[in-house]
């Protein structure tokens, strides 16, 4: 079973994919990267605080499903929406407040 930090890094990688898509909208380049910065920091802080705790059995499949969902996105506008949505859904799956 993967640790919570390892699982969260998979989400961070998925966020990078959304950034690559969202930053193709020139006017939103800064916003996209700022979103990534603040949410990755939040996710890593939560992961670090739970590094020694075993993840619930439902967490790994939940995050795999969410990562699969964002992997299907091809529209850059929807990618930007998911740059905010994926971290919130991830935090809910971990059992943390979503913000």
């Amino acid at each position, binding site marked *: 079973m993967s640790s919570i930090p390892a699982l969260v890094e998979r989400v961070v990688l998925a966020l990078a994919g959304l950034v690559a898509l969202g930053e193709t909208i020139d006017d939103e380049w800064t916003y996209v990267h700022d979103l990534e910065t603040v949410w990755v920091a939040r996710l890593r802080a939560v992961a670090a605080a739970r590094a020694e705790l075993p993840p619930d059995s439902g967490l790994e499949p939940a995050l795999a499903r969410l990562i699969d969902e964002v992997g299907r996105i091809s529209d850059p506008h929807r990618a930007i*929406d998911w740059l905010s949505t994926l971290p919130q859904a991830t935090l809910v799956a971990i059992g943390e407040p979503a913000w």
Partner: protein
Amino acid sequence: MRFQDAAKDARTVVYAGVQADPLVRRAAALLADATPAQRVLARAVMNGETADADGWRLAFPSLFGAAAPPRGDPARDRAEGILEASLAVAGRGEQVRSQVRGAIVEALTEDLLGRRVPPSALRRERRILFDGVHAEIHPYDLTVEVAGAAEAYDCKWGARGISADVLHQLDDARGHAAAEGERLLPVLVVFDARRSCEVRLARQTARRAGTRLVTIETLDRLAGRRAEAAS
């Protein structure tokens, strides 16, 4: 300061049809009593690519997993209802989906405000007029029309909807009201996390100190209730 119905142009006629969609009213009613985690579920599914209900149940174990309330429990039934309604929204075409999502945020805001203010004071699609000031073209999504304690609401699905134009209109209304000796509280309601909204606002130079920001985690304050944690 006076309130006035918005002109019935083509946009308002089309959008009125969206607002009257029974799916909008059903989703808003479910979300008004939802937990924060259930609201995040709605945001994800309405933004989603896939229509596989079991896949979404897998993605939200706290709502549908082994430790979640069983079917028949009100909390579980609400989560299932939100999932069903959100999938119905996601099933609309991209442009319609976007309109429906916006209308749901407005209807949700109306539902929550309706728990705090009398129905006669709560209005949709109203303009606010001030003496000697050119009227804004765009109406406010909702207004609370109480003498001495008026409120004007602009509702957004996501943080990306926050723009300089929106902030200027809200702050200008507050300023014009103050110039007439009236009190008007402008409120921006965003169905997105405050963290994302703050990112969006950080690079805006428009005045917003007098505008209240209500985000997905603090929606219940519209009804006069305290927010809950979202896990």
